[in-house]
């Protein structure tokens, strides 16, 4: 605590200096009002003991000046006075003084009153600090709210894209139908044309070679088109299933390996060039009772995240499925940078994302956990020894005669 002593009488001033310094305060002094004001601006004392009558600015005026200056932190002002009349006392308080002491004063009483002042200033400092903290917090919250709002807008947009995709998927069915149908007709045509072509020995050498080529290649050509159509259908079906509104919560007996394959199909474009997929899928796994669409959503999320983590240089995505104790275990790993150890907790919170604004919503892992938990399963997120991240999901096996309710994630 810093005390300013404003007293023009030298011996009184020295006395006050000794008294207060002796009690452990930091003391500065001034012999007139102007010097007091300078000291206040420069030294920023916490407590000021001011003589009522001083050359330069008087005690009372100085009081008012201090209270008027808004930029000053609170100074506890004790006025020293020989004036004891009520009116004077009122004037002093009116001007903003916190206390007054009538001369001659008692040392102990003075020090007690200074201690009160120190306490009051202490309270004020605490209040100011708390206020600052609150302001900082409120600023952070405001920024957070803006960030959330941006993410929500993005999520909304993505949801619309999902909706559009469902419509597009329907539309693709028609051209797929007539490509496929025509191919079957072509196949029928060819079955009848082929024997005729084979038996015709009458065309010239060059044409004959060409015809042999056609006879050789036609079945494969037809098959190629057929496979293409099949792949289109598979992708479109996967997309349609994925985009279906999740309110139905259809529980079926699901095969985890099918989910893996379907999800990989959906992610094909993301994984294609840079990512090598290593699958270790145990055959004949027991079935789980699940909303298959949601489980696929979980897997798609993990695969895409892994691909993003591994970035431009790519890497290896490992997917393993196996049976556990009354459960099925799915392990997804990548060899990206993994998670910073201190963030392993934070990643489970909603809106956590390391991706730049506009790419990804930060809702992924949060929703993934929600889905797994709603299926009475568990998910463990950890760093793999060596490199990369590892996600271990366990889902309970569907046992006959056991009714299990799966809560609707959307009703949170």
């Amino acid at each position, binding site marked *: 605590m810093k005390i300013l002593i404003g007293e023009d009488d030298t011996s009184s001033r020295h006395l006050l200096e000794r008294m207060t310094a002796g009690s452990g305060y930091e003391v500065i002094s001034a012999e007139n009002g102007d010097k007091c004001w300078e000291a206040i601006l420069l030294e920023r004392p916490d407590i000021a003991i001011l003589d009522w009558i001083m050359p330069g600015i008087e005690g009372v005026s100085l009081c008012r000046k201090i209270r008027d200056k808004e930029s000053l932190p609170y100074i506890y002002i004790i006025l020293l006075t020989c004036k004891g009349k009520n009116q004077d006392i009122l004037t002093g308080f009116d001007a903003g003084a916190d206390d007054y002491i009538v001369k001659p004063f008692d040392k102990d009483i003075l020090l007690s009153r200074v201690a009160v002042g120190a306490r009051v200033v202490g309270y004020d400092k605490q209040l100011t600090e708390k206020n600052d903290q609150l302001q900082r917090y409120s600023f952070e919250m405001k920024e957070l709210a803006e960030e959330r709002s941006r993410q929500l807008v993005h999520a909304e947009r993505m949801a619309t894209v999902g909706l559009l995709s469902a419509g597009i998927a*329907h539309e693709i*069915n*028609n*051209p*797929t*139908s*007539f490509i*496929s*149908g*025509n191919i*079957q*007709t072509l196949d*029928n*045509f060819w079955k009848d044309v082929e024997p005729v072509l084979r038996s015709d020995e009458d065309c010239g050498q060059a044409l004959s070679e060409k015809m042999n080529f056609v006879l050789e290649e036609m079945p494969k050509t037809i098959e190629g088109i057929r496979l293409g*159509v*099949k792949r289109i*259908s598979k992708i479109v079906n996967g997309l349609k299933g994925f985009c279906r509104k999740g309110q139905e919560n259809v529980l079926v007996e699901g095969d985890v390996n099918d989910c893996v394959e379907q999800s990989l199909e959906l992610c094909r474009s993301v994984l294609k060039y840079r990512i090598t997929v290593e699958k270790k899928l145990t055959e004949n796994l027991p079935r789980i009772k699940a909303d298959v669409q949601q489980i696929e959503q979980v897997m798609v999320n993990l695969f895409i995240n892994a691909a993003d983590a591994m970035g431009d240089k790519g890497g290896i995505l490992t997917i393993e499925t196996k049976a556990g104790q009354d459960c099925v275990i799915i392990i997804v790993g990548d060899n990206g940078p993994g998670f910073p150890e201190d963030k392993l907790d934070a990643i489970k919170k909603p809106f956590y994302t390391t991706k730049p604004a506009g790419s990804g919503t930060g809702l992924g892992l949060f929703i993934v956990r929600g889905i797994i938990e709603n299926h009475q399963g568990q998910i463990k997120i950890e760093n793999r020894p060596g490199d990369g991240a590892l996600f271990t999901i366990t889902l309970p096996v569907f046992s006959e005669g056991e009714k299990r309710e799966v809560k609707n994630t959307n009703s949170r």
Partner: protein
Amino acid sequence: MKSKILIVDDETEICDMLSRHFRYIGYDVDTAQDGITAMEKLTQTHFQIVILDIVMPGMSGVDVLRAVKQQYPMIHVIMITGYVTLENVLGCMRHHADTCVFKPLEDLTELELAVSDAVVSLKQWQDKLKTLRAMAPKYTGEIYGR
């Protein structure tokens, strides 16, 4: 005698594709792109089978199905649809479609089978009528039906 099929779908390419396919395997085929044209064609020619798309502008597939079953109860109607909703399929069942085949029509054999099943069923009725005629000649005269 070849059986006659009417194919009704608002997508021309699908009509063409199905027409080509069924003509090649031995049926007579005509097409229509909407319900009203379909009903007109039915008044002019005697079809045994109608292959009908569910979602069409104007008269919907289910509307056409109802109209056909009302006016020509002996015609077999096979629905095809890309919009697989429960509502659609129930509508088909309720109004006595033979069956519903989902698009994309990756395997036309399902459609072929439905058509040939319809032909078999019609032939069974024709045989019954023939037998009836043979059994009771004095009741011959006007035998209703076409």
